[in-house]
């Protein structure tokens, strides 16, 4: 059986520094991530939280922070549907690639048959696509959450 994980690679015409900022500052995440605030001091061991419309939706701890190369945090969703699942782990690797940056996102440490994994597998492509658009064209995407067809999300 294959490992329960989600891997997404994209190439972005930007610099590792700008991409790092976009991954760690709410002023950017609010634009490409449906208004989500991304809250942390980004020091190893410090807390990490996502806040959406005034409510904390996900929490974790910073595991690695090596700007502008590697960022990793644990991730637990607070909703009733997912809170019994063990924390998963998100890692971003930023590599200069000619005039571009290759961004590799790995979301792993899921239980077999994780419902969370099904949800994030639909969410990340939209978030990463919107991030790329914002950095390249200045305009994030307008993809309604409902279009992702995530079970339990409208």
């Amino acid at each position: 059986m294959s490992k329960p994980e989600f891997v997404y690679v994209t190439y972005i015409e930007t610099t590792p520094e700008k991409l790092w900022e976009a991954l760690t500052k709410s002023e950017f995440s609010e634009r490409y991530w449906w208004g989500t605030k991304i809250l942390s001091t980004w020091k190893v061991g410090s807390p990490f939280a996502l806040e959406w419309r005034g409510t904390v939706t996900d929490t974790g701890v910073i595991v690695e922070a090596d700007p502008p190369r590697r960022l990793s945090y644990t991730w637990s969703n607070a909703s009733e549907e997912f809170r019994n699942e063990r924390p998963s782990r998100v890692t971003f690797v930023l590599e200069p690639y000619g005039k571009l940056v290759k961004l590799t996102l790995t979301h792993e440490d899921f239980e077999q048959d994780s419902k969370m994994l099904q949800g994030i597998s639909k969410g990340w492509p939209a978030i990463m696509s919107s991030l790329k658009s914002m950095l390249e064209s200045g305009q994030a995407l307008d993809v309604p959450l409902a279009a992702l067809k995530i079970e339990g999300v409208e």
Partner: protein
Amino acid sequence: MDISQFKPAIVYTIYIASTPEKVWQALTTAEFSRKYFSGFAVEAELKVGGAFVARAPDGSVHIGGEVIECDPPKKLTITWNVNWPALVEKLGVTLVTYEIEQAGDAVKLTLIQAHDRPIDDDILSGGRQGWPAILSSLKSLLETGEALTIKMEPPQRMLAALKKMGIATP
């Protein structure tokens, strides 16, 4: 061709600020593909049974195939066989499906690479490396007017695995 036995091995989804018609055009015409797909010219006879070819800049056929499903601008399924001797004989046919859906003001493009038998991870590393580069570049082209320059060589682990199976690569 019966495609019921094919199972997805690689799925990649990308959202693009564009229209389904423009995404369809970008996937099926040389004018666009030359810009985002390493200079390769896509020539597609857009009807079931029609020919699908991706020609290298020197004019040689790099990928040859056939149109299996064609529902513009929503779905295109083609066979996608890299033109390396013995590849189809040893690995079977590779099936590629593009699904195009409106998602708000954007377009959701899903790429599915499927096979009729289990394929080794080393061999799939080629598609896992290639598709994100090709489709990231296609997205940039449609959104900004400029494709990305992504120079890449086939993964060594794929070439080694193909060689082991007796498939000759250039």
